[in-house]
């Protein structure tokens, strides 16, 4: 059973440690994966994130995308979208960066034991749920059906394609992918990721769903899952908000009564729905 690991609360939680990039992998344009080493890194639970900082630029929350079963390995996948993420993604092997974490709660994989598991990811959202997929496959007998539905905007933006095809070749996980906009040479499914739900079979009364992607996609996925008969309390999603501290003190990540950084980032749809359906909360 994985436990949520918190940084030493005695030390100053706003002061980072000095981490280093040991390997840099270009995934697709604007997306890189780093293997990193950090002093006293003790592992994490699937779903947790770190605050990664580029000296002189800034600091942002980034989920841990590697396997939780290998506590020595620290893996992050970053998409360059703005000043800090662009500077981060531009760092070379050997570069130093600031790290605080791990923060946040975990995907409740233990509650999915013996059940069907549907993982729905959109775009970069595959990175934060990848630790869940590793966990499900490493402990495959603990779960009933395992299904991954993944959607990207375009074929060339699809992440982790090597792993996706390896998983597709397995008989113990069903993988379906789709793109919003096809390109020449794409023979796969075209359409939003929720449209894939129609093509896969699972027992909604005994299904846990883990959803990660853009907020609008998560909303549609939750609705589609509920329509299919999955209980709102069994649909889990990871929320994104502006974060400056990750420890519940800066106030930026509030969504009504919750601090996304401290109470989340993972919540079930029963709890989130009233908060997410309210515009500009």
């Amino acid at each position: 059973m994985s436990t949520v690991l918190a940084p030493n609360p005695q030390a100053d939680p706003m002061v980072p440690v000095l981490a280093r990039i040991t390997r840099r992998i270009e995934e697709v344009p604007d997306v890189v994966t780093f293997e990193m080493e950090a002093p006293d890194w003790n592992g994490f639970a699937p779903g947790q994130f770190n605050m990664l900082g580029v000296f002189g630029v800034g600091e942002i929350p980034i989920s841990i995308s590697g396997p939780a079963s290998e506590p020595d390995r620290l893996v992050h996948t970053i998409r360059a979208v703005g000043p800090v993420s662009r500077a981060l993604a531009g760092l070379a092997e050997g570069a130093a960066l600031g790290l605080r974490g791990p923060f946040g709660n975990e995907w409740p994989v233990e509650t999915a034991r013996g059940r069907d598991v549907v993982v729905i990811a959109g775009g970069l959202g595959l990175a934060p749920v990848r630790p869940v997929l590793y966990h499900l496959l490493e402990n495959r007998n603990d779960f009933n059906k395992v299904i991954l539905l993944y959607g990207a905007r375009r074929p060339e933006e699809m992440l982790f394609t090597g792993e996706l095809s390896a998983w597709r070749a397995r008989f113990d996980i069903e993988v379906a992918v789709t793109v919003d906009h096809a390109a020449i040479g794409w023979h796969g499914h075209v359409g939003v990721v929720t449209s894939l739900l129609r093509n896969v079979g699972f027992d909604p009364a005994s299904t846990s769903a883990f959803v990660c992607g853009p907020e609008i996609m998560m909303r549609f996925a939750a609705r589609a899952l509920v329509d299919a008969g999955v209980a709102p309390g069994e649909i889990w999603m990871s929320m994104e908000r502006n974060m400056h501290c990750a420890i519940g003190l800066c106030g930026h990540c509030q969504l009504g009564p919750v601090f996304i950084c401290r109470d989340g980032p993972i919540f079930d749809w029963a709890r989130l729905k009233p908060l997410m359906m309210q515009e500009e909360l």
Partner: protein
Amino acid sequence: MADAATPVVIEASALDQLISILKSKGFEVLGPVRRDGAIIHDHVESSADLPRGWVDAQSGGRYRLHQEGDAYFGYTVGPSSWKRLLHPPEQPLWRCGTRDGEIRIDAAPVDETRHALLGVRPCELAAIAMQDKVFLDGPYRDPHYAARREGLFIVAVNCSRSAETCFCTSMGTGPKARECYDITLTEFSDGRFLANAGSTEGTEILGALSGRPADAADVDAAEAATDAAARQITRRLETRGLPEILKTSPEHPRWDEVAARCLGCANCTMVCPTCFCTDVEEINDLASGDSARVQRWASCFTADFTYLHGGGAVRESSRSRYRQWMTHKLATWHDQFGTSGCVGCGRCITWCPVGIDITEEAAAIRGSTEGG
């Protein structure tokens, strides 16, 4: 000398005794001073620095000082709260640079100065207790706040007068101090004070002041003084059921109405003694090549506050920002910290350039919700 637990009556001259005892014990004494037309908090050397005879007149969007009587503590609350000291507008977090070829990150040292606060109002004690919950009682503590807070010595002053903007009686925080102080003073109209100790250190210091044990009449007189202040209060915020009402009224038309008046200037969040939000910013020292991170006060009234790449601000409209501010203060604060986030000091009313009044806005939403 009075026995430890009994209140003591002291003369105004004992204020200087008190200040010098605190200084001799190593405290940096901070108290009310008149500056730029307002009462703010700063270093006080002696009772001569106190704003004796100055009284404020406050109303929505208006604050003026005038001379009236000769009380030391005749004023109520000004624009600065003790948040400025305990959770300052700018707090360095760390600095990073290359030393002898190695990158080093050095945490900013905590401030170990022991501060003695003179003239803390009951609503301000409540605000400190609320910020304690935020910065000390959660899963993570703010070490800078903790260091300043731990060394604090608090001399509270009960209110014998209230301002038109005060509504501490609605929030249960004043005008008489109940918690979180080392000494409380109640000023009598004849210039003497009733002094009470609230801690061992307070008892010890009080014992060293020249005074006499209070009798029942003194205690009654002090009670009458705070009762008079309470009776002066006309503003009211009905808190019963308010969290539920606010949380279930996000689409109330009143939010549009108040948004049309709100300038989004963030003054209310800056003067609020409990608002705790901050930005973390990176700064570069071009001379040394070092980079450093500082924490600065932030406000939920700005667009940056909820900015997300791709989508822009989550709270785009001023309606949603005012709603966040008021709902956080009066409703979701209860979910997060088990109390209201409002102490009823009225600063947000006084310092709002257009005089938006939280009590009036809450009543408007309650009124039509309950009515309909």
